[in-house]
């Protein structure tokens, strides 16, 4: 049987085939990301309170998603029965003494966290109950585990202290280097050629010369109040000068109208002299062929304007 397709049908066929293939591919990839095709085991637990629990919620071990919550149900004893699936690759970690707890991250919704049990414990079968932190058994397991963890903690601290002492005692440690530097510094200070020794010797010489009345400071200290008397007489003279100055300023204030008129007259004379000089400068015979440069205009402040604004 032979088929004959028109060009139109072929184009439309390709157009639609690409769409169908794309949709299938995207769905397969989403399925792979969401682990639809992976085998899972179902476990259950129960909580005293159900705030934040929802179907589809993540199940994690130490922040890694290992499954999701399937159903949530309030049972006859008013406890929350929760069933959840775990991806098969992680089911070996779900041992008999595993405990489930609700963890609220800083951002985002709550997650169901599984605290995995010991490696030597039997692995739980699909459909088994895992104790939650809310149950007595769950909290007992956690208490025991914490008790077991305390010696581990002490061992860790001792190990840290050991490391610290080694660091301090070793030649490459920071404390050793600091001590070495300090030792060098002290040696430099105490040696005869050191700067501290020299400074101390200089101070000793200065104090000796002062006490033996040598040098300027020594002489000043042994002048039988001569310098003090001089300073006192200087102050008295200064007081007299100040009195004279006060008298002079008073006299000038009284004769100020005469001074003002004299200044005005001298100003007029100055302006006339300036005009004469400018006329002479502008004269061809005096100026010659050189030109006088006009002073540049300087902007004036508002306060200087007549009348202001």
């Amino acid at each position, binding site marked *: 049987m032979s088929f004959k397709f028109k060009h*139109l049908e072929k184009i*439309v066929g390709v*157009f639609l085939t690409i*769409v169908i293939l*794309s949709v299938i591919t995207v*769905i397969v990839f*989403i399925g792979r*990301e*969401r682990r639809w095709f992976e085998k899972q085991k179902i476990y259950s637990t129960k909580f005293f309170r159900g705030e934040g629990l929802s179907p589809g919620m993540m199940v994690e071990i130490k922040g890694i998603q290992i499954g999701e919550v399937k159903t949530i149900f309030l049972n006859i004893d008013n406890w929350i029965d929760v069933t959840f699936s775990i991806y098969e690759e992680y089911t070996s970690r779900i041992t008999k003494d595993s405990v489930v707890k609700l963890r609220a991250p800083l951002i985002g919704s709550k997650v169901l966290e599984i605290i995995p049990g010991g490696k030597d414990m039997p692995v739980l079968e699909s459909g088994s109950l895992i104790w939650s932190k809310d149950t007595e058994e769950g909290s007992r397991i956690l208490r025991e585990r914490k008790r077991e963890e305390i010696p581990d903690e002490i061992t860790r601290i001792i190990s840290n202290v050991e490391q610290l002492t080694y660091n301090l005692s070793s030649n490459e440690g920071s404390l050793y280097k600091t001590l070495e530097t300090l030792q060098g510094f002290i040696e430099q200070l105490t040696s005869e050629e050191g700067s501290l020794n020299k400074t101390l010797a200089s101070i000793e010489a200065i104090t000796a010369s002062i006490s033996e009345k040598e040098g300027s400071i020594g002489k000043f200290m042994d002048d039988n109040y001569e310098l003090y008397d001089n300073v006192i007489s200087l102050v008295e003279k200064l007081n007299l000068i100040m009195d004279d100055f006060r008298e002079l300023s008073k006299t000038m204030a009284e004769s100020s109208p005469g001074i003002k008129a004299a200044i005005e007259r001298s100003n007029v004379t100055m302006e006339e002299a300036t005009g004469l000089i400018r006329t002479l400068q502008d004269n061809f015979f005096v100026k010659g062929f050189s030109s006088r440069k006009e002073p540049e205009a300087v902007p004036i402040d508002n306060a200087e304007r007549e009348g202001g604004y």
Partner: protein
Amino acid sequence: MGNYFYNFGKWFLIKIDNFTSLNAYTILVLKIFFHKRKVTFKTSLRVLFKQILFTGVEALPLIGMVSLAIGGISIIQSLTFLPKFGGESLIGKLLVTVMVRELGPLLTGFIVMGRSGTAITAEIGNMVVSHEIQALEAMGIDPIRYLVIPRILGVTISLVSLNIYFIILSILGGFLVSKMVLVTSISIFLKKILESMVLSDITVNLLKGFIFGLLISVICTFEGFSVKLSSTEVPQRTTKAMVNVITALFIADGIITVIYYI
């Protein structure tokens, strides 16, 4: 004041009448669609293929250009503000939300409406004016079966398909832009997109494409058949079809989004 209420009441009654007529028309189309009659199947199939070619294949370059640009622009915009509060990891989620859920179906719907919806209304309107519809009926050919159903199927299939092309090309556009800014490979980029995408995103996208396609084709064919006598009615009906389609698309988009995500 009385005149105002009279005008408002008149306008409201016309709107109600149009809406009920559109519903009756949709029921009629569905009735004819599900009524078995193989006589015109082959001819209708040819019309369907032509409609897909015109609405889907020929619109692909325009859709491609728009989707590449929108994908790139969304990535640029998100890269300018998301890193400020450490939200680089949300780029994939943003692209999925914008492209797959909202902008993709709406933009594709508007492009198809502008290209094919107007053409369908004008074509059917002109056929009514030139009595071609009457001629078809005189020959015993049902115009709904011969003209409307292939167009509804064609536009709907094309719109759903164009939506998928829009997603693919916008993701490609986003990748090309992010490649310029970030050092990332296509596999990591696609992984981030797929991590953010859930099945409901694809379902909603396809559903929106399907419903938008139905709305565009039903409203446009209805407005085409609403032309009575004069050829001057054709552009008026075309404009009215566009306005009604835009309103219908936004209402449908809102309803679907509310149903799925709230």
